[in-house]
């Protein structure tokens, strides 16, 4: 389903980019039809529906429909107007002014104003938001000259904020419901009130989350769907069956076993769409514990990189839903991506030579040394990746013992106890390396036991300097240069091996149209989606 209605086509600022991506002609006569209930797979069940303190995918997928942001991101990851109709950046990069949309109402009928933005920035983005804290740290003052203007004053420039201003990246909460209460413990976290196209109706634990159409939505005529029903189906095979049978019409975030997707691509009643994950840019990587007696040698790390056939990994383990990664800054983040960094092609002979050089020769039993490998327990794909790596390293005489555990134990082991040798994980790079990439390399995180930061234990003063300089650099070109230098160093020293640029996908019913219309679609709203013809429900 890669067609877009003319309406959206013209509205989208990146129309040309879209046209190039489309592999089918645009059907100009397609007019969205209103009505129907859309059943969506939600996997796993979210912890909360508030996007303020939980960055987990299920929370954000639901919340994106309830909360509009200041902007949304098009397929080129450029911000487009949403609750903010326009914005200005001062020449020195230290003042940003947002002009807000008039006539927007919260789902409880209260008007949305600049005070909500100011309150959310000061009480959420700057304080408890797990990812934004560092980005909004340099905001020294927020001014609200009137109800529809917000002025941000920065002590130092902070350009990456322009990559996180959508509904879930910088969530705006209703001040009148939260002010003066315990934000983390608020009852509204589980029955959210937003400004978005869909209104929260009911959350039945273990079964579903139900949203209904917002009749007072500012974007008149939208949304087209009457209801969205997020269903919780724990078993992957059951999810695939539900999609195949049509009980579910939309399954984002790899909710279906990869093998089923291969078969689904042949079915007439379902379609597979790989777009809408551009904003996240997921990357699969292998952390080497640089404090390990073998892995502390750069040559050993490089040897292991040469031993892993990442093409085969993408093809066999991930069924083609991914491609070998070049750098921790994925190629989709085109502005910052450096394709000239050192590469580690699959070459077992070179790997063995490097290990010999490093002094780790094969013993009498053919083994050089033994290490452990922990993998992120997020499903069979990760376990199979670990099994693939184990067998690949076995071939060059490195014996790997895979250790499996649940999420809590994994995080404690890697980031708390640091009791591991190899660790497999993935992260979201986001459009600016400052948000998702550098946290894995900055030595400032070491010793803080903070999950999803520097897992390898890597310390490099130059890298630290580059990271800190780029964070407060007001000149975009200078930032790009900083990040390119950063990539050159970390791919030479290789504390972390980027494995694959993961290709997430959504499966949806063939008669469901315009399910992907933005670059941040899967974390955003389904207000543009509609059922063609025989509408359901």
């Amino acid at each position, binding site marked *: 389903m890669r067609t877009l209605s003319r309406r959206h086509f013209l509205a989208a600022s990146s129309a040309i980019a879209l046209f190039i991506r489309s592999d089918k002609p645009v059907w100009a006569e397609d007019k969205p039809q209103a009505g129907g209930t859309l059943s969506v797979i939600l996997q796993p069940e979210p912890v909360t529906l508030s996007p303020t303190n939980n960055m987990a995918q299920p929370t954000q997928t639901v919340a994106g429909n309830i909360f509009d942001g200041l902007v949304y991101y098009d397929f080129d990851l450029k911000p487009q107007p949403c609750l903010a109709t326009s914005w200005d950046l001062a020449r020195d990069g230290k003042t940003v002014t947002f002009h807000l949309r008039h006539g927007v109402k919260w789902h409880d009928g209260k008007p949305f104003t600049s005070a909500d933005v100011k309150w959310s920035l000061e009480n959420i983005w700057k304080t408890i938001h797990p990812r934004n804290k560092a980005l909004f740290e340099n905001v020294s003052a927020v001014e609200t000259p009137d109800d529809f203007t917000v002025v941000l004053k920065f002590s130092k420039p902070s350009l990456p904020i322009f990559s996180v201003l959508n509904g879930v990246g910088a969530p705006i909460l209703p001040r009148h419901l939260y002010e003066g209460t315990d934000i983390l413990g608020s009852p509204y976290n589980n029955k959210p009130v937003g400004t978005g196209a869909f209104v929260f109706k009911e959350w039945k634990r273990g079964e579903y989350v139900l949203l209904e159409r917002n009749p007072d939505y500012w974007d008149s005529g939208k949304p087209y769907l009457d209801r969205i029903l997020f269903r919780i189906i724990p078993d992957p095979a059951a999810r695939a069956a539900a999609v195949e049978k049509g009980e579910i019409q939309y399954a984002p975030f790899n909710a279906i076993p990869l093998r089923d997707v291969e078969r689904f691509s042949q079915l007439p009643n379902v379609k597979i769409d790989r777009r809408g994950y551009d904003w996240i840019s997921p990357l699969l990587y292998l952390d080497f514990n640089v404090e390990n007696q073998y892995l502390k040698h750069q040559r050993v790390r490089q040897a292991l990189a040469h031993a892993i056939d990442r093409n085969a990994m993408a093809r066999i383990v991930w069924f083609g839903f991914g491609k070998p990664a070049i750098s921790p800054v994925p190629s989709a983040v085109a502005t910052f991506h450096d394709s000239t960094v050192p590469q580690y092609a699959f070459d077992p002979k070179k790997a063995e030579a490097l290990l010999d050089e490093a002094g780790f020769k094969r013993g009498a039993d053919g083994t050089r040394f033994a290490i452990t490998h922990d993998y992120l327990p997020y499903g069979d794909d990760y376990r199979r990746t670990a*099994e693939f790596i184990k067998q690949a390293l076995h071939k060059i005489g490195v014996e790997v013992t895979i250790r499996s555990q649940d999420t809590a134990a994994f995080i404690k082991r890697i980031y708390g106890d640091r009791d591991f040798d190899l660790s497999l994980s993935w992260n979201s790079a986001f459009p600016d390396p400052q948000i998702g990439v550098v946290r894995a390399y900055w030595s400032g995180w070491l010793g803080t036991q903070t999950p999803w930061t520097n897992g390898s234990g890597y310390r490099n003063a130059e890298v630290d300097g580059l990271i800190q300089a780029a964070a407060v650099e007001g000149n975009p070109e200078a930032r790009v240069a900083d990040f390119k230098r950063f990539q050159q160093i970390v791919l030479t020293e290789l504390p972390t091996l980027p494995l694959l640029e993961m290709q997430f996908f959504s499966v949806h019913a063939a008669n469901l149209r315009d399910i992907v219309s933005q670059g941040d679609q899967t974390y955003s709203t389904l207000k543009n989606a509609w059922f063609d013809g025989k509408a359901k429900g």
Partner: protein
Amino acid sequence: MAFPDSLILSADGTGSHPRFALLRRLLRRPSALCGLVLMAAILAMAVLAHPLYPDDPLDMVAAPFLHPGTDAAFPLGSDMLGRDLAAGIFHGARISLLIGVVAALVSLVIGIGIGALSGYYGGRIDAGLMRLTELFQTIPPFLFSLAIVAILQPSIATITGAIGITAWPGLARLVRAEVLKLRHSELVEASISLGASDARIILLHILPNVLAPIVVSASILVASAILSESSLAFLGLGDPNVVSWGGMVGAGREVIRTDWYVATIPGIAILAAVLALNLLGDGLNDALNRKGQRR
């Protein structure tokens, strides 16, 4: 009549003639014969695993998703990573039987120990041990093993231990009841009056006489341990470093709709093993001349 012949025979296993009597009685029953043959086949697989498939069964040797019967070199096909399923089944027999037998042993040791002490001494010891047994009986056993494996992290040892440590209460009650019956028998009273130590009486005079129900329970325990291991693996709590049938079923569950054989072939192996052990248990039960077995 303190030593019914069949019991001694299976107890010391030295007298060749009476042992054959037991075997003969087993073979007379077609279902027990079936169980015996099946079990022999599974044991043969375990023994032949290394000679037939000397390489690591985890090696990716074939194209992924070879369906059974399409390639003569891989008669049972290959799984999603291209691992030979036949090699997995043969090597898996070793691990699955190992898990089953060791888990059953753990249960037997705890169950017999608690049951015998409780039944022999009675009184406060009995009351205390029975409270402990009730305690373990009220916690859902599968959920309990699930929690233990999740907490200690899945490996062959933790999986086996967790299954074994949750499966004994039924056996403890059974042994206690049997011991209670024997406690006041002439033989035991006589031994006590002769000044035999408690340990000696329990080990030499009482336990051999309750061996029949224990042997039958043991076969059932092995069978249910193999089933439990597969259930744990289905929920993602398997050991990825070794091949076991349960682990293979767990690995194949995601593709069960597209490539049914990946989970079904090891599933059939489990079914065969559990069936064989139950048939054997039933057969032993009858052959050991007990009228009915309550579980």
